[in-house]
């Protein structure tokens, strides 16, 4: 404690004694500062708000935003704290259920959630490490179904998604599900993980999936989408352009293996979760 005060009163004077603890304090101070600037989940904003960000910036990005404007009407931002993919996924999914009241989808996803629970058990996770997170997610899922005592409105869903004690628990639920899926199908995921980090599957799950604040990559999205059976569309907004000089906006659909392998290839899958990816960050996009 004495050391900390010394550093605060005279920054940079005592770097030799600047310990890991001090660095952690500094990190959490920066996080807290961020937290005051951006909520876990922002309000729905028109796409023009996105264009305004780049007014004096890259013309390629502005052109791409114009293209986005043809298909999408709004954006909802999430806090850039490394959990943005999971927070975006959480709100998008629950908002979809709330709006459609799709009971069949709820029943289907519950079956998958129970499957994930069994996966974790068979991998040797102690029940008490994950059961609270599972329970909290299922509670949110129940609450968006209308007509019950515990039902919540859209406004309440937004409010809950901004409540750390709910949002962090759901993020952790997704991290458990993602880690379980990667470990269960480690042979499938291994080459992708090697391409990213040169780590083993176990190391990757321990260091890049299970800790809060670790950013998500295509490996995480694939695993979560597969485990829950929920397709996700990711729209990419970056500075890249075609060789011919033309500009187009790419997207990639993450289609769960349970949907892509069942032979009903004639059916086009239309993900109801659409995320906007800018290098290092995910926000929610709303199609027109």
């Amino acid at each position, binding site marked *: 404690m004495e050391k900390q005060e010394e550093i605060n009163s005279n920054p940079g004077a005592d770097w030799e004694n600047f310990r890991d603890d001090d660095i952690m304090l500094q990190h959490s101070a920066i996080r807290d500062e961020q937290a005051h600037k951006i909520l876990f989940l922002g309000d729905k904003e028109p796409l023009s708000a996105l264009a305004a960000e780049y007014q004096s910036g890259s013309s390629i990005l502005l052109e791409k935003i114009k293209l986005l404007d043809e298909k999408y009407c709004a954006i909802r931002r999430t806090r850039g704290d490394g959990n943005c993919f999971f927070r975006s996924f959480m709100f998008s999914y629950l908002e979809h259920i709330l709006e459609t009241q799709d009971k069949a989808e709820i029943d289907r996803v519950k079956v998958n959630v129970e499957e994930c629970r069994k996966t974790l058990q068979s991998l040797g996770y*102690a029940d008490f*490490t994950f059961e609270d997170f599972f329970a909290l997610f299922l509670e949110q899922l129940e609450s968006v179904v209308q007509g019950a005592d515990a039902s919540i409105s859209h406004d309440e869903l937004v409010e809950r998604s901004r409540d750390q004690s709910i949002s*962090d628990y759901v993020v*952790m639920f997704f*991290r458990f599900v993602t880690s379980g899926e990667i470990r269960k199908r480690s042979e499938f995921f291994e080459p992708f993980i090697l391409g990213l980090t040169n780590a083993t599957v176990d190391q990757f799950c*321990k260091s890049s999936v*299970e*800790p*809060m*604040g670790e950013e998500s990559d295509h490996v995480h999205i694939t695993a979560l989408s597969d485990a829950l059976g929920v397709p996700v569309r990711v729209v990419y907004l970056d500075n890249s352009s075609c060789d011919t000089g033309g500009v187009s906006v790419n997207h990639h659909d993450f289609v769960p293996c349970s949907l892509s392998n069942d032979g009903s290839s004639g059916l086009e899958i239309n993900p109801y979760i659409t995320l906007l990816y800018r290098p290092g960050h995910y926000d929610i996009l709303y199609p027109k």
Partner: protein
Amino acid sequence: MVDFSRVQKELQECNKDVKISGISVKPKADSLSHLIGTIPGPVDSPYEGGTFLIDIVLLDGYPFEPPKMKFLTKVWHPNISSQSGAICLDILKDQWSPALTLKTALVSIQALLSAPEPDDPQDAVVAQQYLRDYQTFVGTARYWTEAFAKTSSHGMDEKVQRLVEMGFPEALTRSTLEVVGGDETLALEKLCSN
């Protein structure tokens, strides 16, 4: 808020197989936010035979915030401060996850005792000794285990006292005991052969 119902489950789970693992966690007093962990020194390491006490403080937000752990027992190890007992271990910092538990953290600390990482030191003096003079490091670590981590280690001063009474200088007696890891008979042989 610390999630105390989870802490309760963790204590039960951890103390269930204490006979096999030797690892236990107990509340320090009435509060569940201040605990004491116990880990046996791993076999085939200079810490073998020692029992190490870890001070555990749970901050608000546990299990989202990592438990604060430090050695109460003095230990000579590159990644543990010989002064304060502070531990340099990634899972106690940014690599912590609610998927981990107090038990898994203590198991990781035990593994750290077996496999020091001198390139990422907490105690620079120990780390340098580990890299430059490994034999002296092993001797010192063993002596510290003998002196501080064994229930019989309170006997160290008496061992010194007995040898001093035989006529050996105290400083030499202590350093000799240190080299042989606290074995009184070996120390006497060494002192006599000088």
